[in-house]
Structures are given as structure tokens and as C-alpha cells.
């Protein structure tokens, strides 16, 4: 299983300025990706552009994948252009996750169609309910089709779909849907069974990501065995294969670093095999777990 870390974008509580350090920590812990997510409820707080944030953390990191969660709404050609620039800055490490709730499902669907076309190599033309590209406005000199340039660094930019309005839009386009933190295993299973039914073997190459909250103490401590057991169960039940772990908001910096180390050294290793042998788990128990001792609530680890 791939294991990543959710990094919220908010200008209010200082996490924006912590973003670079936290991205470096996630990479140092051996995690597979970071998920940069603007808060839906905080428009105008000045930190909501996940693609600018991705471009910012890219030069600070070398290998970790950077997933940028972008709400549908902006002109899709601009979303595509920003994503292409971020993908090139990161030398091909970007995942673009487009998000929309149920009310915005139509806009999300059209955004997906346009972003898919605009990040592909061929010139394209789009006529939709909301956008026309190119506009072919009489007063302009215009072309029949346009090419968005440059191309992404990757031959095909990975595009995921998130939000309550995203499951059917993802399925119709053969894309991965990201199960949200509030979506339980039962609903995720229903979604993926429907996708398998609709797409058949076409669904096999799709990653099956989910955001999952970690219940951690203020010191950043959590029950890694319980987390591993839950994720393993979801993996078996519906094929969860990319877990984006969300730590509680407001963790102090040392507590956050402690939690990320625990994810890297205790959670992720146990999820790299279907059934780690008992002697390996005993080794983790006796050698590794003492390095990351359980810390009492309110106590900051050294």
C-alpha cells in the first residue's frame, strides 16, 4: 500500500508557513505522497491554491509525489496550465486531484473534460455548458483548436477526482475516485463495486485512494497497530491502495514530526506485505516501537 500525508492549506493557523518543513519531513519519513488540500470552509483566507503550494514544495523535495487538491470553478485551462507548470517544476511528480461536491457535479464533469484535453498533447476544441475553448469570438483572430503549452513532464498527468460529486464523474472517464475522510469503508466498497461493474477490466489499473483520519494525542502519539489493522481491512475489502493519512489539526510542530516518524517507521512498513511474518512483527515490537514510545497526552516528545 502507498501511504501519504494530508497537509492542509490554511493561512490562518500558520500551517502555510510550515508547509515546506512538513513536506520535507514526509519525504524523510519515506512516505509516498503528500496531499495538499485547501479548506473548503475558508475561502479568502489566502492560502487556497494547492497548485501554487505544490510548485512551492517541489524544489524542497526530490522524490515524493505531490497531490494537489483543486476545487472545480476556475477556468479549466488555467487549472491545466498551473498543473503543467507544477509538474515540470517537480520533474513529473504531480497528481492533480479535482474536487467538487454534489451541487457542483456538472461543473466538475466539464472541468475534468477540459483539463484532460488541455494536458494532452493533441490540439483540442471544447464546447460545453460553461466553457468554450477556443471561444471563436467574432472580434478576435482565432483558431479552430488550441494547444496548451508546455506539456506536463509526465507523458500523462495523473488526474484523480475527489468530493461528493466525483464518483460517477470519475467512473465515466476511467479515473480514480478519492474516498473522502467522511466516507466509510461500506460506501467506498459500493463505489468501487459499481466501478468494476461498469468498467470491467478497465478498472484494474486504477489506484484506489482514500483519506483516513488518524486519532492522535496532542503529543502526536497514536495506536499504530489499530491504524494498520483498519487499513489492512479496507485493502482486503475494497482494494484501498493509496492511503492519505490526516493528522488532527493544531498539532504542535514537535508532535507533528513525531506522528510523521511513526507513520514512516511503524505504519507504512507493515502495509508493504499482505501478511508480514510473525518474527518481523516481533522485531518491530522489540526494536522499533521503543524508539517511538507512547507519549502521555500533553507531553511533547524529546
Amino acid at each position: 500500500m502507498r501511504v501519504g500525508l494530508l497537509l492542509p492549506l490554511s493561512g490562518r493557523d500558520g500551517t502555510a508557513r510550515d508547509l515546506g518543513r512538513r513536506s520535507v519531513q514526509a519525504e524523510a519519513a519515506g512516505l509516498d505522497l503528500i496531499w495538499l488540500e485547501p479548506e473548503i470552509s475558508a475561502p479568502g483566507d489566502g492560502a487556497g491554491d494547492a497548485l501554487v503550494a505544490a510548485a512551492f514544495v517541489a524544489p524542497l523535495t526530490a522524490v515524493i509525489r505531490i497531490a494537489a487538491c483543486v476545487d472545480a470553478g476556475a477556468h479549466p485551462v488555467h487549472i491545466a496550465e498551473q498543473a503543467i507548470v507544477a509538474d515540470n517544476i517537480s520533474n513529473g511528480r504531480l497528481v492533480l486531484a479535482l474536487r467538487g461536491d454534489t451541487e457542483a457535479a456538472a461543473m466538475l464533469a466539464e472541468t475534468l473534460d477540459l483539463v484532460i484535453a488541455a494536458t494532452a498533447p493533441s490540439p483540442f476544441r471544447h464546447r460545453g455548458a460553461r466553457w468554450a475553448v477556443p471561444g471563436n469570438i467574432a472580434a478576435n483572430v482565432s483558431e479552430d483548436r488550441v494547444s496548451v503549452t508546455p506539456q506536463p513532464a509526465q507523458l500523462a498527468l495523473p488526474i484523480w477526482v475527489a468530493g461528493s460529486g466525483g464518483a460517477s464523474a470519475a467512473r465515466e472517464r476511467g479515473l480514480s475516485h478519492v474516498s473522502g475522510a467522511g466516507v466509510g469503508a461500506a460506501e467506498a466498497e459500493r463505489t468501487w463495486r459499481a466501478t468494476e461493474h461498469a468498467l470491467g477490466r478497465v478498472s484494474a489499473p486504477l489506484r484506489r485512494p482514500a483519506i483516513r483520519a488518524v486519532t492522535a494525542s496532542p503529543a502526536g502519539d497514536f495506536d499504530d497497530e489499530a491504524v494498520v489493522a483498519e487499513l489492512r481491512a479496507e485493502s482486503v475489502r475494497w482494494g484501498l491502495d493509496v492511503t492519505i493519512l490526516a493528522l488532527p489539526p493544531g498539532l504542535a510542530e514537535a508532535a507533528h514530526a513525531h506522528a510523521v516518524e511513526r507513520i514512516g517507521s511503524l505504519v507504512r512498513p507493515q502495509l508493504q506485505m499482505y501478511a508480514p511474518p510473525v518474527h518481523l512483527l516481533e522485531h518491530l515490537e522489540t526494536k522499533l516501537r521503543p524508539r517511538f514510545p507512547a507519549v502521555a497526552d500533553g507531553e511533547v516528545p524529546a
Partner: protein
Amino acid sequence: MPDVGVGLWTMRSTAARPVHAAAAYAALTRDALHAEALGFHSLWLAEHHFWYDGWCPAPVAAAAAVLSQTSTLKAGTGVHLLPLWDPPTAATAAETLVALAGERLYLGVGLGYRDEEFDGFGLSRRTRGRRMDAALDAIALRWNQEGRGPRVLVGGFSAAAMTRAGMRGLGIFLPFSLSRAKLATTIERYREAAHEAGRTPGMVGMLKYAWVTDGSSRQREAAERLIAASALEYSGCWFELNGRSGFEEPELLARQLSLATANALIGTPDEIAEEIAQLDEAGVDLVVLQVTRDDVSADHRHAMEAMAGALFPSSPPLSA
């Protein structure tokens, strides 16, 4: 001495200087560290859309790469084509970068002029002035009043541009084609517009082609040829001259290119430093030296080092 920045990183992969886009952006982050180490004030990016060479279409995202590894260097856009963007999208991008990197973003904004770019976004080019005014009122005035966000400089030198900037108390970003003779009256017009609106004039920035020589006339002539060559493809394809593309109007194109060479800073590093000091007396607060060469083979890093030695004599020498 005004602040001195370097520009313009266009991220182009031209026929004359092909480069993979990812390599160009990797070089951008290296150049940003280099510019900061040399003592330059800022590094400036540009924006265009839908062109074969991959000209950077999202300069604020590119500016994020400039600012993430540097600590004092500023990043500027020279210019961000604001009428092509919805104001909330442009504002969120800029505000995110300020939240991440601090007050180190200078947002030079311009109208844009190529029909195909407006058409790609479903906009009529004829609306560009109105869209610029609406965007400045929605974004820049708010940033100004709240004392946060990037510093905004309005690009151009027309009376309309000077009024647009002055009446809102925003800065200006003058193009390389503005002659020394017209510089004083242009800045005066801008200041009058600010005072008439009861505003304090903002920062005066200016782009200048710069080329380091040994001071000889032979190298000056070569520099003029190379500056013209470095602007040829862009001017020939993009500028509408007499209603046609520049390449179809060779005489007008040559005159356009002569504007670049006539107003360029060409000479030894000390001579260039002296000319920059004179711009200070004319009221220019920030000079952006055009040192990148997208269409000719010349190393901007060498030019940056040579000019930094004359401009910032107190800065520590770079280790070899």
C-alpha cells in the same frame, strides 16, 4: 542606486535554444539561488499562452519555485496578463504564495495583446481594459487597503496605463522600449494621476536590456546585433505592425528591434552601473535587467556575475 533585479525568465524552448521544460524549470530554481547569492533584488518571470515554445503560462506558480528555496530574493511578474484570469483565481494564487513565502511577490500586470490568447479563454480582446480595471479594483485595491498581498505594478507607459496605476496608488512597470527622453514625462504623468486622486505614487519599475562588453565599439556593435537577434522571433511573430505580423513588415520590424537596442544598457559593468545610477535620478526605483537570451547563444549567468561585481561591490565574492 535603485534596486536591481534580473529578468525575464520566460521558460521558452525556442528553435534556437531547445530545452526540456522540466530542465528549464530546474534551471530557474538554480538561477534564483544564484541571483540571491550575487545580491540581486529580484528575479522576474513572464507570461504567454498557447505558443510552440512553451512560454510560461502560469508565472505565479513559477514564482513559487523561485521563492521556496530563497530567503530574501523577491520574485516578480513582468508581466502577469491579468485580464486573461478571473480575479478570484489570480488573487488566490498570489495570496497563497504570499502566505507561503512572505511579502516577496511583485505582481507586474499587463493587458496582453494577442487575440489568440484571449480567444483561448473565451474572451474578446476588446474587453481587456475593462477587465483590467475590474480586476485591479477587486484585488489590488483590497490588498492596498488591507496592507497585505503582493505589491502590484501596472505595466506599460501609455497615458491610460499611468492613470490606471496612479489613480489607485499602484506602482508602474515601464517597458524596455521607453526612451530616456520620454522617461521623465511618463513618470511625471503617473505622479500627477496619483496626486489628482489623492494617492501616494507607488514604486516605479523599469525593464532594460543589458549586455556586458569590454567597452570596445566592436563588442558594442556585436551586442546590438545579438539583442536584436534575441528579440527577432518574438517581435516578428507576436507584434502586429501595420495590421500584419512583424515578419511581413520587415522595415517596421527593424524599427521595433532598434527600440530594444537603442534603449539598452550596453558597456562595461561599471558603465552599466553608472547608467543605472542615472535612472535613479530620473525617478526609477527598480531596474530589471533583461539578461536572459531565449534566441541566441549567450550565457546569462556570466552576465549576472559581471554586473553584480560592479553593482554590489560590498557583496561577498562567490566561491568558485
